[in-house]
């Protein structure tokens, strides 16, 4: 939780890459340990993490199913009509399934422990070294901050405009795709105009508050890499080394 957002982002990327390094089941043991450890430290209730898995349930079943039935080779275990279950199939299915689960759990750990604002700060600071080659790091971060700030406002606005048009007899719920698309116009046009009007006003307000881009700008909250961050980096590095080493294990 308290890790520097930059460290978290980098570690998550390393984690995802390391998932694809793994070629053997034994590698997953380490991943499992690593994830369980992270969950314990983050103190996020397991329920939340399982909730994150729900939306991918269908694709998970599909992945497992398809791999079970359509992987040739290995010992034939059972067959249902033309569908054959082979040992290779079971292996691959389990393998892919686990990879997917770990992928989801790992990334949801990042998003559950890091606020989008912290992520934005992290991204800005990570991109900063690339400024010299023309990467607009500050502008990107500023933009993301403003976007995050206005998402709830625009959500509310959407609801308001929708209700106002329904009160004028607009119908958002029937007809074919073409008709529905047309029916959305009374919602979408005012929403756009509202967004641009807000942008105009916000730009003036920012100017009045001495905004002049990223030049010479300081920050209230400085990002600092602390001991915990170094420990986290160390642990993750060990994991990666083990996983690479794991590729040469016989099982």
């Amino acid at each position: 939780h308290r890790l520097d957002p930059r460290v978290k982002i980098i570690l998550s990327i390393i984690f995802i890459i390391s998932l694809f390094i793994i070629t053997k089941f034994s590698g997953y043991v380490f991943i499992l340990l690593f994830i369980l450890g992270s969950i314990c430290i983050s103190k996020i209730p397991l329920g939340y993490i399982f909730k994150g898995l729900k939306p991918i349930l269908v694709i998970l079943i599909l992945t497992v199913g398809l791999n079970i039935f359509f992987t040739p080779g290995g010992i034939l275990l059972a067959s249902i009509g033309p569908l054959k279950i082979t040992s290779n199939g079971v292996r691959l299915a389990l393998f892919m399934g686990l990879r997917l689960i770990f992928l989801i759990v790992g990334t949801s750990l990042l998003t559950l422990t890091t606020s989008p604002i912290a992520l934005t700060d992290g991204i800005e600071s990570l991109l900063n070294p690339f400024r010299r080659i023309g990467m607009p790091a500050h502008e990107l971060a500023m933009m993301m901050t403003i976007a995050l700030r206005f998402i709830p406002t625009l959500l509310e606005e959407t609801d308001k405009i929708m209700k106002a048009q329904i009160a004028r007899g607009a119908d958002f719920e029937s007809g074919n795709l073409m008709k529905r698309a047309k029916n959305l116009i009374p919602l979408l046009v005012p929403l756009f105009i509202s967004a641009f009007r807000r942008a105009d006003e916000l730009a003036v307000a920012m100017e009045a508050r001495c905004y002049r881009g990223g030049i010479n700008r300081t920050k209230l909250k400085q990002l600092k890499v602390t001991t915990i961050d170094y420990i986290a980096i160390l642990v993750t590095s060990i994991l990666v080394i083990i996983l690479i080493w794991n590729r040469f294990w016989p099982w």
Partner: protein
Amino acid sequence: MREKDFKRLVYIALMTALITVGTMVIQIPTPYTKGYVNIGDSFIFLSASILGPFAGFISGGVGSALADLLSGYAVWAPWTFVIKGVEGLIVALLLKKRSAKKSFVRIAVFILAAIWMVFGYYIGGAVMYGFKAALADVPGNIIQGIGSVIIGSILVESLSRIKYFKDLKQG
């Protein structure tokens, strides 16, 4: 920073927020299937056609990736960033070159961008859970693509008739 660039930055930011909102909440149920088409892609088309390539790429990529993050599909966020970003880029670059005033040109460009979107997500899915399983997402994405092209074209058409946006495009 010049004043114009700075205003542009705020426009892109609001467009980004709008794309996130459009992806997350403005959905129309598709008839026959039980799926939904969200407005996100149509907003990307619009952002790209009004604000240009840089804005199309950034607002498309960031806005859609944020929607993924906020609705718990964090795994998809990096893929989405690239796929939707390039989607916006395609629209902006192609519309810039050709006479974008003709609506059939515009629709063709939107279709192309939608095809890229379907293809991109297929590749993403394939890397994450295999080529076969990834096929499962394709029909849904195709419907999303078709819906987006329809809504996007109607939207750009009706907005281009409003004076406010005519001024915006010039200035």
